[in-house]
């Protein structure tokens, strides 16, 4: 079935966090549903739609920023009580807007995930999980890494309380009481959890998860072990998943999966006979989708997907057919309702305009006074700086409530800025004098009108570390700009994994000295991404990492006074050694560094690089030939006279070019890493081989694995 959905805007509220909008259950059979949405101004807004007009049911008073909104109620009755959490407080409202609960959880951190089930309340702050029953403390759990979301299997079907935590370290932790029952490893950082079918399926054990790198999966969490059902890869490089809902949209009796992503994509997946998901509908909004719900809001008996975006737009993708649209020339044809709506809006705008003019004047006047200060409140920025596994580059997304005027990027490490097709801003690189000011990159982005979201790609080099700063200036008077900082870590291209291949030849680095567990943890955090800020519980810890570009691995295990690092890539070890000793010296801690270099590891790494390098070289060679071959083809009239290999290149030219375009400078990066490997290998032997690099490059130009390995061995 082909879905044809139309976009309708309902209302704009303040900036919203993910999962802060829910549809209240319908009262009658066919009635429309009310929408409850909470924003960063601390306002809970409940409204219904009547003839295309948003009719408020209630609006709470402003307060602290609200991070989650959930529905609850006594088990077995309609879930129509509204629960919100802001700071460390949980509040409850009836559907009429009467506040009946205010509960201070007394946590030191802000609550960022919450679930309500009957009289049970579950809240999660950064690392802490807490379970309350009738506002009395029941269970407590401290997670090893940040908790992004949580869900509880339905008590009605499962018969017991089973909380599931989605943690930053790529693990779903399934709890029993205050204890960990088992955990389930997934390939990306889980960002959102939702019960499949809204009730967890037949046995109430099926949980949908979405990851920050855009994957979507289903897992059955039985009482003893997890059973993975399916996982969808993010091949098209869409944004990370922010919200999920299930709703029977296609009317086939099976609930479809609705997904909202941080690049504004809204998707509907249908489940086929074998319960495999297939994409049925896709639409791209201009802002990240914070909440998604299936239901019926605009007009009775027309189902729709209701979304709220980061900037607070509540809108629907509805099955209701739209009337013929009128052009700008004949506004008379617009429906009465819209006209009235527009007139009201215009009147409101005029009033506001007057107020703003007064405000402006007063602001101007204050500039005459010598005692007054100008203090413009901080505007909110929704930003993400994540490593993309596929092309081993960082993607930086910035989203602001109002249109962005310009962006200044500054970096004190050498990095490459890549072009992103979606990004329409005009970029301009400025000359940088690295000497006195330490700038390696100064670039400005001048945005087109109405750009609220910017996406950039940055390529870093391992071993070179520092800070990338983004100065964002929105189009808002009085003009201000805000700076955001992003760390480029020494081993910036590494990513956490769950385990490594121990059979590879490994180089080891061992540190012994008078340092505490917290100290060495902070050093490791300084070197590697995705390490939790908090010092892990227990005496020692082991983390596993993978280099996203080369596929080499790293094992870091350390405790108080000792640290062991193992990697099959000698460059990784070399970088670690340099940075760790530098950090220790900074804190005046005496380190005893010893290392064990495995000669085989170098040729092993080279063999690992070999297929990549060979493929890239071949690709480059083929791409080079395409134009010449095409010219021959035109000249001769056909390509029959060519050898099959060349004809093949011609046939595949479109795909080859596409691939080549996708990986700019891939070959240069590989060359750079091989050169580093070469230098690092001999650095551990105490030799400086910088003079031989030109010979190495010569060998690379006429690449052959054996001669390269020989060169590494002989030099």
């Amino acid at each position: 079935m082909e879905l044809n959905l139309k976009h309708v805007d309902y209302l704009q509220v303040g900036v919203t966090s993910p999962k802060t909008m829910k549809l209240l259950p319908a009262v009658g059979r066919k009635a429309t549903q009310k929408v409850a949405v909470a924003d960063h101004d601390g306002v809970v807004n409940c409204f219904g739609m009547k003839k295309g007009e948003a009719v408020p049911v209630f609006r709470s008073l402003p307060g602290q920023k609200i991070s989650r909104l959930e529905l609850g109620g006594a088990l077995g009755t309609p879930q129509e009580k509204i629960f919100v959490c802001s700071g460390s407080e949980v509040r409850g409202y009836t559907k009429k807007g009467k506040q009946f609960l205010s509960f201070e959880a007394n946590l030191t951190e802000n609550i960022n995930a919450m679930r309500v089930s009957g009289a049970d309340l579950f809240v999660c702050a950064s690392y802490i999980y807490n379970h309350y029953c009738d506002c009395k403390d029941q269970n407590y759990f401290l997670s090893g890494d940040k908790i992004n979301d949580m869900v509880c299997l339905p008590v009605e079907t499962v018969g017991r309380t089973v909380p599931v935590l989605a943690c930053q370290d790529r693990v779903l932790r399934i709890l029993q009481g205050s204890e960990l029952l088992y955990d389930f490893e997934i390939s990306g950082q889980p960002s959102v959890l939702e019960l499949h079918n809204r009730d967890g399926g037949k046995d109430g054990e099926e949980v949908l998860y979405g990851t920050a790198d855009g994957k979507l999966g289903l897992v059955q969490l039985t009482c003893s072990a997890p059973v993975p059902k399916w996982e969808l890869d993010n091949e098209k490089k869409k944004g990370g998943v922010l919200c999920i809902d299930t709703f029977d949209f296609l009317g086939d009796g099976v609930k479809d999966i609705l997904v909202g992503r941080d690049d504004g994509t809204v998707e509907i997946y249908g489940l086929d006979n074998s319960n495999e998901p297939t994409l049925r509908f896709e639409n791209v909004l201009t802002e990240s989708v914070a909440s998604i719900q299936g239901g019926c809001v605009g007009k009775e008996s027309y189902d729709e997907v209701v979304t709220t975006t980061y900037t607070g737009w509540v809108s629907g993708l509805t099955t209701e057919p739209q009337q013929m649209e009128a052009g700008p020339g004949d506004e008379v044809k617009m429906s009465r309702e819209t006209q009235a709506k527009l007139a009201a809006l215009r009147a409101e705008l005029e009033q506001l305009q007057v107020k703003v003019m007064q405000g402006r004047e007063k602001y101007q006047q204050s500039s005459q006074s010598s005692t007054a200060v100008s203090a413009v409140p901080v505007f909110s920025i929704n930003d993400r700086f994540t490593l993309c596994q596929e092309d081993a580059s960082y993607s930086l997304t910035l989203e602001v409530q109002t249109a962005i005027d310009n962006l200044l990027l500054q970096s004190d490490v050498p990095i490459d800025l890549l072009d992103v097709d979606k990004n329409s801003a005009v970029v301009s690189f400025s000359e940088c004098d690295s000497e006195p000011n330490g700038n390696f990159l100064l670039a400005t982005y001048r945005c087109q009108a109405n750009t609220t979201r910017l996406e950039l790609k940055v390529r870093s080099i391992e071993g070179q570390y520092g800070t990338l700063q983004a100065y964002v200036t929105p189009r808002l008077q009085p003009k201000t700009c805000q700076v955001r900082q992003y760390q480029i870590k020494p081993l910036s291209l590494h990513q956490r994994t769950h385990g490594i291949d121990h059979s590879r030849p490994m180089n080891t680095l061992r540190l012994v000295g008078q340092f505490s567990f917290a100290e060495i943890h902070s050093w490791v955090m300084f070197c590697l991404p995705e390490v939790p800020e908090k010092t892990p519980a227990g005496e020692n810890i082991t983390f596993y990492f993978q280099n996203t570009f080369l596929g080499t691995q790293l094992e870091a295990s350390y405790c108080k006074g000792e640290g062991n690092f193992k990697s099959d890539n000698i460059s990784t070890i070399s970088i670690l050694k340099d940075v760790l000793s530098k950090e220790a010296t900074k804190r005046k801690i005496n380190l005893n560094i010893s290392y064990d270099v495995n000669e085989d590891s170098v040729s092993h790494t080279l063999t690992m690089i070999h297929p990549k390098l060979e493929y890239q070289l071949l690709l480059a060679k083929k791409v080079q030939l395409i134009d010449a071959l095409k010219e021959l083809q035109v000249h001769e009239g056909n390509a029959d006279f060519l050898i099959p290999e060349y004809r093949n290149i011609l046939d595949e030219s479109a795909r080859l070019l596409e691939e080549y375009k996708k990986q700019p400078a891939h070959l240069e990066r590989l060359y750079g890493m091989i050169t580093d490997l070469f230098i690092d290998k001999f650095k551990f032997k105490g030799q400086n081989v910088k003079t031989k690099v030109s010979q190495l490059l010569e060998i690379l130009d006429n690449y052959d694995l054996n001669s390269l390995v020989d060169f590494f061995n002989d030099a």
Partner: protein
Amino acid sequence: MLVPIFTLKLNHKINPRMVTVGKFDGVHPCLTAATQAGKVFIHNPHVRGKRQAAHRLSQSTQDSDITLLNINQAVSCLAAGILGPNTTGDTLLVGSQTSLLAYDVHDNADIFYREVTDGANAIVLGKLGNIHSPLAIIGGNCALQGFDYEGNDQFWTVTGDNVRSMVLCDFTGDGKNELLVGSEDFDIRVFREDELVSEMAENETVTSLCHMHGSRFGYALANGTVGVYDRTARYWRIKSKNHAMSIHAFDLNGDGVVELITGWSNGKIDARSDRTGEVIFKDNFSSSVAGVVEGDYRMDGQVQLICTSVEGEVRGYLPASKELKGNLMDTSVEQELVRELSQRKQNLLLELRNYEENNKAVPGAIEGESQMGVIPANTQLQTALSVRTATENQRAHIELSISTPNETIIRAVLIFAEGIFEGESHVVHPSAQSLSGCICVPIIPPKDIPVDLHIKAFVGGRTSTQFHVFEITRQLPRFSMYDLHVDPSTPQPKGRVTFSINDRPQRVVMWLNQNFLLPEGINSPNMTFTALRGEGLLSISMHSSGEITLNTDDIDLAGDLVQSLATFLAIEDLQAEADFPIYFEELRVTLTEVDEFHSVHQKLTAAMADHSSHIRNMLVQAEDARLMGDLKTMKKRYIELYNLNRDLINEYKIRSNNHNALLTRLKAVNQAIQRAGRLRVGKPKNQVITACRDAIKNNNINALFKLMRAGTASS
């Protein structure tokens, strides 16, 4: 939503900007474009049936609708239209770097073939001014040349730099066409026959021009700007990060007014309103757009917009029908309007909140004050421009100093300006240690142009994460790189230009103050400057009789000064006497070099003809030997042939070097004429240009220098 009415895949690459539609048999429009391997293809879907491959034409084996035309040279421009007085159909004109070919496709015969030494970068076909017959006008290296249907040179003039784009339109509204020329020195020049009527300065190479309607025309620049001019006033412009490949005027929404259609390098096509630049329609190709043309391709009496991509994809669009009411995009107008108004409301609310919060602010009582970047309300930035001479470690520059009056600091300064930086912006971002309330920005404008500096300064406290953005615009005068400070040891310039004006010296002083960075209180027009960009002095002196003498060795500078002064004083015609001994000596050398290169060229051509007859002989001998079975002789002959071939290749290299050298000399000569013209204004200017050109034609070098010195006052 407007959709293409036809799409074609032509399987031939299309060279950007070399696409046209011609009715070669007088009836059927054929899409004609330059492709690889020095060929032009003609797509004629109307007349099927094989034609004999003969002369230049050959049938494409891949597609029966396509005939290929062999030019055997890289094509650089292409046009089709009526040239002769009584031809049946359109004539195809093909320009290359060395020649122009007029070709009758219908009869498969050359009409004329002309060698053009200045090359043909752009071509237009049509009537110009009072010249009776239509001309094919080509623009090459600094020269414009027009040919009638017999190939007679009917029109010739010079322009400032290499021509990149041309269009014929009635710019002055006198009922006759003027020629608009866009060139690599960023200027759009308007010629009424060979008289220069006006000049518009842009900030990048002008890559395309197109006539809209009346005196209105569209333009595109190499930096991604497109826009519309009405006469000399710019209506609107927009800048994109992509490059405009082709622009065309077409009434796509059927409202009777043409829109500017732009084809972009990323494959996007958009149509913009000629008044506002608002996008009314867009579509996407998978590869870069090559050209946008129009024609009645379906032969049904309706003209379509035809867009082509470099990969040979062709799409045709019909103008929108009445039902669409100008709404060509798939959006609901009401929705858009409501959204826009709500967005504005949100913006005003946010601004209002900024003022309210600001009013609440009491110094020292705000939470997070240091991050918010609170500054005294009376902070105002001071900016100053001053000229700085070269020091040991810095080149001579103009210093823009920006400072705050109190303890606040300037975190960074962004300057957006056109044409003086590598990109469109320049950033100064001091390191965290060296933050202060004063920032000096060195600016080195590469040319003498007046520039608006749009300065954005981020002002706040040392630890702020949010800053106030101060936006200031300062104008950099045209001749800012000239310093009043004079080193007495510098030799006096030998070049001078003298002319008389009927104005008071005060007016000249006013002009000086406006165009130079001068200290206050200058009231004499006699002064001497040091040129910071080049070497040497510039002195200006005015006699009480109104005679002004400019002393400089830089003839370009003298020309700029004369033109600027004449514009300021509104002088229409100005005769001048000039002498630039150094430059004239250089020119004399260049002229003799031109002769030398010419004779070398002739010699080489003769040698080549000689060699080719040798080859023919040797080939016959070698083949004879082969047939006779005399392998020894055959081998010998082939070896000789091989040697001869090598010689030929070497000779070719010499020839092409010689040709390039000749081209640069010829360009220098053309520029010299242009420069001599720029020392005068109005009629005397055109007279000098025409007379100089005649002198060169007659090879009368002495007369040329006399003309350059004295102008044409004597005649």
